[in-house]
C-alpha cells in the first residue's frame, strides 16, 4: 500500500513535486484534510489558517510552473511551534498572556522558510513559553501523543512532535532550551535536532532562556532534518549570538561523510532512573554502530549530576528577565481589575501566566536578587564552564556521544504533578544546551507497550554535518520514524 502523502518524507515529496507528480496544492490539501481528521484527538495546533496555507501552496505551484522553484522545501507544508513569529499570524507561546497577540513581523527562520518556498502551516502547541516537558503547561489545551492518546507527546515542542507523528505536517520546527526538541521527538518517534547554539537565528523566537534557546528541525528522517537545517541555519545580523560560519550542504554531506565514528558512551547517562526498555533499545542502537565497525568506548562527563541544578538557575534567571516584558502595557493580556498602574503589572501578570511560568519567574528572580547572586547565578555560570569543559574533553577521544534522549517513554497525561519529577525528564538533554552543542534524537524502536524510544547523538560545536551523517548511518537502515500510528 502506498504511503499517503501526509506520511511521506520531505525528501520523497520534494522529488514528487519536482517531477510534477503532485502539486503543492494537492499536498497541502492532503495535509489539511489529515489534520481535520485527526486533530480532534491529537490537538497539536493552537491555530491554523487553511486558506492562507493554500494561498501559499498556489503561489508555490505558480513559481514551479514558471521555473522559479526555490529548492527542496518548495511547496512543502511545514508546521511552526507557536513561539516563532509569523507576520499577521497569532503568536501565543501557548500563554493566556499572548492569547490575542498577532505578530507584526516575521522571525528570521520564518523569512528563510518563505525564501525556500515552504508552505507555513499552523501554530503548534507547546508548554507555555516553552517551559515544560509534556505540553501540559499550555494555557489552551494539552496535546496527545499520537501513539497513545492518553499519554503526553513530550515537551515543550509537543505540538511539533505530535503533529509530525500524526501526519498533520511534513516537517516542523521546534525550539530547544533544555531538551524541548529532542525529548518530544523521542516520545513521538520522530527525529529532532538541536543545533549548535548560534547556528540558527533566534530573532523572532519568543525567548525563554536566551543563552540556551535554539530553533531546530523535527522530521521523519535524518535526511529530512539535514534538508530543513540547511534552509534555516546561517548567520543573521539581527541576532548578536548568531555565529558567522559556513553552512555546508548537510544533505550532500550525508553521503560524503562515512564512519566509522568513535562513539563515546557517557557512563553518567545510564544510571538509576533509566527505564530498562529504553536502555535496551538504546543498547541495540549502540550494537548497530558496533556492527558498522565503529569504536564504542565509555567516557565520563563528571559534572553531569550538576546539569539540572545549573540549568534551573541559569534558565529561570534569564526567563525572569525575558518575561518581564509581558506586562499588558504595549500588548498582551491586561487585567481589568487593576486599581492603579502598579497593580496593573501584578494583576495582568498573575492572570496572564500559568503556574509553571510563575514558578520559574519566582525562582529566577530569587537567584538574581540581592545577596543571592553570587551563591546561585554566578556559581551556576562557573559550573556551566565546567560542564562544557567535560564535553570538550570527551571529544578529544571520541567523535560523538551516544545517550538515551529521555530516561522514560511517554508518560500519562496528568501523571507528573510534582515539578521536580517533571524536570528530571530533561536529565539527558540539558547538558547539551549548557555546553551549546548540537545533538539529535533519532527514533530507535518501541517499548512493549508500543511507545517510541529515541537515542541521542551529541556532536562537537558546529559539527552538524558529522552528527547528521552518524545519525543517518543508523536511520537510513532502521527508519523508525517512518512508522505511523493508528489513529
Amino acid at each position, binding site marked *: 500500500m502506498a504511503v499517503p502523502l501526509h506520511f511521506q518524507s520531505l525528501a520523497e515529496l520534494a522529488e514528487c513535486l519536482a517531477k510534477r507528480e503532485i502539486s503543492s496544492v494537492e499536498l497541502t490539501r492532503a495535509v489539511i484534510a489529515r489534520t481535520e481528521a485527526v486533530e480532534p484527538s491529537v490537538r497539536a495546533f493552537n491555530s491554523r489558517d487553511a486558506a492562507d496555507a493554500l494561498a501559499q501552496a498556489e503561489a508555490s505551484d505558480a513559481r514551479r510552473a514558471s521555473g522559479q522553484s526555490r529548492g527542496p522545501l518548495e511547496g512543502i507544508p511545514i508546521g511552526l511551534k507557536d*513561539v*516563532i*513569529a509569523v507576520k499577521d499570524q497569532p*503568536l501565543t*507561546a501557548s500563554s493566556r498572556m*499572548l492569547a490575542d*497577540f498577532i*505578530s*507584526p*513581523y516575521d*522571525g528570521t527562520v520564518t523569512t528563510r522558510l518563505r525564501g525556500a518556498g515552504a508552505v507555513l502551516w499552523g501554530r503548534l502547541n507547546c508548554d507555555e513559553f516553552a517551559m515544560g516537558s509534556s505540553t501540559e503547561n499550555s494555557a489552551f489545551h494539552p496535546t496527545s501523543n499520537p501513539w497513545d492518546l492518553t499519554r503526553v507527546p513530550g515537551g515543550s515542542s509537543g505540538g511539533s512532535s505530535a503533529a509530525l507523528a500524526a501526519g498533520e505536517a511534513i516537517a516542523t520546527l521546534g525550539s530547544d532550551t533544555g531538551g524541548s526538541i529532542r525529548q518530544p521527538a523521542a516520545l513521538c518517534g520522530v527525529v529532532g535536532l538541536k543545533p549548535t547554539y548560534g547556528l540558527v537565528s*533566534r*530573532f*523572532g*523566537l*519568543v*525567548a525563554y*532562556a*536566551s*543563552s540556551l534557546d535554539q530553533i531546530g528541525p523535527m522530521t521523519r528522517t535524518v535526511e529530512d532534518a539535514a534538508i530543513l537545517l540547511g534552509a534555516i541555519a546561517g548567520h543573521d*545580523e*539581527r*541576532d*548578536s*549570538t548568531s555565529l558567522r560560519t559556513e553552512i555546508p550542504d548537510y544533505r550532500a554531506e550525508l553521503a560524503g561523510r562515512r564512519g566509522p565514528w568513535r562513539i563515546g558512551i557517557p557512563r553518567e547517562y545510564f544510571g538509576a532512573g533509566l527505564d530498562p526498555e529504553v536502555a535496551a533499545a538504546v543498547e541495540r542502537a549502540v550494537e548497530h554502530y558496533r556492527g558498522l565497525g565503529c569504536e564504542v568506548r565509555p567516557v565520563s562527563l563528571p559534572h553531569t549530576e550538576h546539569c539540572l541544578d545549573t540549568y534551573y538557575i541559569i534558565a529561570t*534567571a*534569564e526567563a*525572569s*528577565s525575558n518575561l*518581564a*516584558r509581558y*506586562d499588558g*502595557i*504595549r*500588548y498582551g493580556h491586561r487585567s481589568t481589575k487593576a486599581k492603579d*498602574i502598579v497593580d496593573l*503589572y501584578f494583576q495582568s501578570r498573575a492572570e496572564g501566566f500559568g503556574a509553571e511560568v510563575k514558578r520559574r519567574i519566582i525562582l529566577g*528572580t530569587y537567584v*538574581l*536578587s*540581592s545577596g543571592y*547572586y553570587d551563591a546561585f*547565578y554566578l556559581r551556576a555560570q562557573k559550573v556551566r564552564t565546567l560542564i562544557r569543559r567535560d564535553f570538550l574533553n570527551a571529544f578529544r577521544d571520541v567523535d560523538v556521544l551516544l545517550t538515551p534522549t529521555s530516561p522514560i517513554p511517554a508518560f500519562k497525561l496528568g501523571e507528573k504533578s510534582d515539578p521536580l519529577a517533571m524536570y528530571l525528564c530533561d536529565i539527558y538533554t540539558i547538558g547539551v544546551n549548557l555546553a551549546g552543542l548540537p545533538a539529535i534524537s533519532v527514533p530507535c524502536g518501541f517499548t512493549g507497550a508500543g511507545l517510541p524510544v529515541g537515542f541521542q547523538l551529541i556532536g562537537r560545536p558546529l559539527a552538524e554535518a558529522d552528527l547528521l551523517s552518524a545519525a543517518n548511518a543508523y536511520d537510513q537502515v532502521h527508519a523508525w520514524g517512518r512508522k505511523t500510528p493508528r489513529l
Partner: protein
Amino acid sequence: MKDVNSESSSVSSVSTASSSPSAARYEAVIGLEVHVQIKAASKVFAAVGTGYGHEPNTLTDPVVLALPGALPVMNKAALDAIIKAGLLLGCRISPVCKWDRKNYFYPDSPKNYQISQYDLPVCLGGEVEIELPGTARNVMGEHKRIPLTRIHLEEDVGKLSHGTIDSLVDYNRAGTPLMEIVSEPALHSAEEAYAYLTSLRASMIYGGISDCDMEKGQLRCDANISIRPVGEQRLGTKVELKNLNSISFVRDGIAHEIRRQIALVERGGVITQETRDYDGMTGTSQSLRSKEEAHDYRYFPDPDLMPVAVDEAWKDRIRATCPELPFDKQRRFLEQYQLPYTLTSVLVWDRALADYFEQAAGLCGKPQAAGNWIVNDLLRELGNAKTTLAECRVTPRHLAELVKLVDAGMLITASAREVFAEMFATGEEPGVIADRRGLRNAPSDGGELEQWCRDAITANPKALAEFKAGKDSAINAFKGPVMKAAKGKANPKAVDETLRRLLAVS
C-alpha cells in the same frame, strides 16, 4: 555667545547671594549624574531611526517595543562615541566591557529591563576641567579638575505624558543611545556644578558626540547633594535632586538645596535620604513619594549581547578624531595669538567660532584685530539677525580681507564698520563694497595729502611751536583740518605719517 555673557554674569550674582554667615560653617558635597544622548542615526540596540519631535510611536520596531522574539544588536557608532567621550575626558578605556540587564518595571521601559553596564563600563576615571568665575570679567578664574567615576552606555526610555485620569506612552525616545557620566562627589558649590556642566557640555559638543540640547532632553542632570561641617571628612546624608532640566536650573536647584539643608540643620532638623523634584519656574523643591522598597535591580550579564573588547588600534582610530578641548584651545590662543583673556573666553566655547577665528587670523596675520571683529561685530550682527555662524555669509576670508584693508590704511574704522554691515547682509567681498560705496581711501602717496598737510601746518604756527617743544599730542591739531580737506576719506595712519615727516623738517 550671548548666552555665555549673560550666564557668566548671573553666576556672580548667585555666588554673592548664597554667601550667608551660617553657610560659611558648612561644606556642600555634590556629585552629578549626567545623561547625554549620543547623536546617532539609529538606536543603540535597534536599527531604527532616532529623533526628537516626531509623531508619536513612529520610531519603533519590534526591538524598541520589546515584542516577543525581538533581539538587540549593538550600534557600533554608539561605542565609538562613548570611547571618544572617554578619550576626551581622560578616562581609562576598559579593554573589555559587557552589557548587563537592569531589571525594573516602568511603563516607559518596554522590556522592563534596561540594557546598561554594571561592573564593566566602557570608561573609568577621567576628569572634567572647570573654570570658576574670576574676580572680574577680564580676569581668568581658578581652574579645577573634577574627577569622574565612570561613563557607561545604556539605552534611553520612552516618554510618558500625563493626563488627568491616565497617562500616554510614546516609545520614540526608547532605545536612543545614552551615556551616563558619573562624577565623584567632588563638587562643592552650585557654581562649580554649573561650571562642570558648561565644560562637559562644550566637550561633548566639540567632540560631535551630542548636541546636548537640554530642551530636547539630550542632556539631563541629577545631583546628589549633602552638606557637612567644614573640616568633617565623613559624607552627610545625600539628597538626590531630579528634573534639573536647564543648566541654570541645575545651579539654582543645587544652591536652593544647599540652603535648604543648612537651614534644616541649623534649626536642629535631620536630613533624610530622599529624592526631591526641583521646580525651576518657582525655585522650590518637593520630596517625591518615597520608594516603598529598596531597589533590587538584579543586574546580570545580558545573554543576548556579546562583550566588547577595545584594543589599542580602535582607540587610536578614535583618538585621531578627537578635537582640542576648549580650555586647551584657550591656553593655546593666549600663547600663540597673544589674545586677551576676554577674547579667548568668548571664542573658545564654540568650536565653529574658534575655527572661524583661526582661519581669519591665519589669513590676515592680525589675530587680535580678527578676534575683535568676531567678538564685537560678528557676534552682534549674528545676534541681531537671530542667525548662526553656519548660516553667516561673511566668510573668514572676507573678514581677513577687511582686516587687511584697514591695516593697510585703505579703510578707516568707521568705513570698515559700514563695509562689514553690508558684507554681513550680502556676502560680497569687502573691497567690492568699499569701492562701490566710495569708502576706499585715496592712494596715500598722492600729492594731495601732502599738500593738505603742508597747508594745515602753515595755518597753525602755535601748534607747530608746541610740537617742536616736545608736546607730541599737538600733532592732533593738524589732523582735523587735513581730514576736513580730505572730506573724511584720508587714511589716519597715512595722515599721521605724512604730518610727522613734514614736521620733522619744518
